[in-house]
């Protein structure tokens, strides 16, 4: 446990030294404030200027879901970029043969940041959401978005050979979020083209408040993590 904690402390120290974690924390809180207070103000302005009763209000739940997803995405992104730098500098390989071990490396770089992201996203969604959320739904949705964050970090790290490819992959991994707005805008069966994306099932679950959608949500998330983890595991071996 001691080497593990030391590895995690080293990781947090590096991220803090880079000011990245601070920026990520500020960005998530800023996003939360923007969604909670900015979006309703923009809605009022838009409704006044366009003479309509409702424009954005129908999509407040979508903004809440974005808030739930953004926190794990940002924290896992910072973690994945740090892992990529460590891989570039061969630190990752060295750490896996120290008492930290491969498991310790994965726990300190992937699991701990995700757990932190899970707690932070629960807090932000509880305090800054635009729509009423049952507490159980907050816990379940944030769990799914945190697993989605792990998928993004695994995708970014596994398919990049260096920092340049990492940035390109970071942009591409944003596509995993694309499933979120689909059930809000596409009502025909075409929406099921997005069924491999966990974000699609997260949105379906929250719109319908139907727990049945949690099954494909968890299944698709775990399939993504399982498939990407195999590549990740080979890379750090």
């Amino acid at each position: 446990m001691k080497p593990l904690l030391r590895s995690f402390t080293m990781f947090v120290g590096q991220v803090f030294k880079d000011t990245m974690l601070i920026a990520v924390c500020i960005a998530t809180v800023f996003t939360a404030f923007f969604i909670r207070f900015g979006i309703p103000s923009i809605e009022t302005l838009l409704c006044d200027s366009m003479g309509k009763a409702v424009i954005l209000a129908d999509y407040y739940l979508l903004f809440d879901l974005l808030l739930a997803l953004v926190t794990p995405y940002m924290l896992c992104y910072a973690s994945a970029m740090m892992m990529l730098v460590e891989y570039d500098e061969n630190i990752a390989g060295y750490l896996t043969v120290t008492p930290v071990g491969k498991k310790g490396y994965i726990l300190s770089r992937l699991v701990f940041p995700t757990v932190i992201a899970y707690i932070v996203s629960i807090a932000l969604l509880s305090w800054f959401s635009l729509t009423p959320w049952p507490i159980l739904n907050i816990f379940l949705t944030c769990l799914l978005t945190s697993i989605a964050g792990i998928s993004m970090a695994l995708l970014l790290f596994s398919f990049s050979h260096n920092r340049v490819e990492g940035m390109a992959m970071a942009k591409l991994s944003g596509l995993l979020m694309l499933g979120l707005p689909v059930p809000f805008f596409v009502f025909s069966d075409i929406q099921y083209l997005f069924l491999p994306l966990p974000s699609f099932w997260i949105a379906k679950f929250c719109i319908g408040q139907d727990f049945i959608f949690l099954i494909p949500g968890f299944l698709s998330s775990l399939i993504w993590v399982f498939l990407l983890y195999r590549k990740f595991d080979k890379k750090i071996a």
Partner: protein
Amino acid sequence: MRINVLLIGDIRFQFKYGFYFLYLIFTILYIGLLFALPESWREQAAILMIFTDPAAMGLFFMGAIVLFEKGERVLDSLAISPVRPIEYVVSKLLSIAIISTVVGLLIGLGSGIITNPLLFIIGVFLGSCLFSAIGLLIASNITTLNQFIVATIPAEIIINVPAIAYIFGLKPSLMIVHPGVCIIELCQNGDKALPATFILILWTILSVLLTHRVVTGSLHSLGGVKP
């Protein structure tokens, strides 16, 4: 001649590391998304997409490119080669501006929002050079990618916020001196497109000169090489 070789090298680098593939996917995706939006939103949404993504590509990727070159000792080699810093800067800016302009043009044509192709091309091209110059300026003085990402946030806010406000209708006449607003004005073929062209050229020249100065200092400091 040297600049041609540098330019081809940079384009090959961007092709090898997936920039072209990435933006092929994003172009198709953006055009698809634009057609999913209500027609009245399409022009504003397309301009917003072009301004914040292909045009701003340099600001996003320059840190990774420069840090990769630093790690591979490319800059050390350049510092002792006959390549002049201005050639290095221009090559970086042009190579990214080419892909930005092509992607911007494809999104613009695909969504049918271009009314004056020449002004549109000038807007995206100069905008890309401006963003890339700022990216290169920041990248010259950082050591890690995370530092670069954090350092670009103020630049992004300063350029993006007034320009996005302009897209959504906040249009006092003085805003035309802002470089981001000039890019929007040119892409939209607005009433002030002519002064916007000159102002944007001035901003681009200014940013290139500033970047050249910083890159020169950075290259000269490598390996103890002095001017």
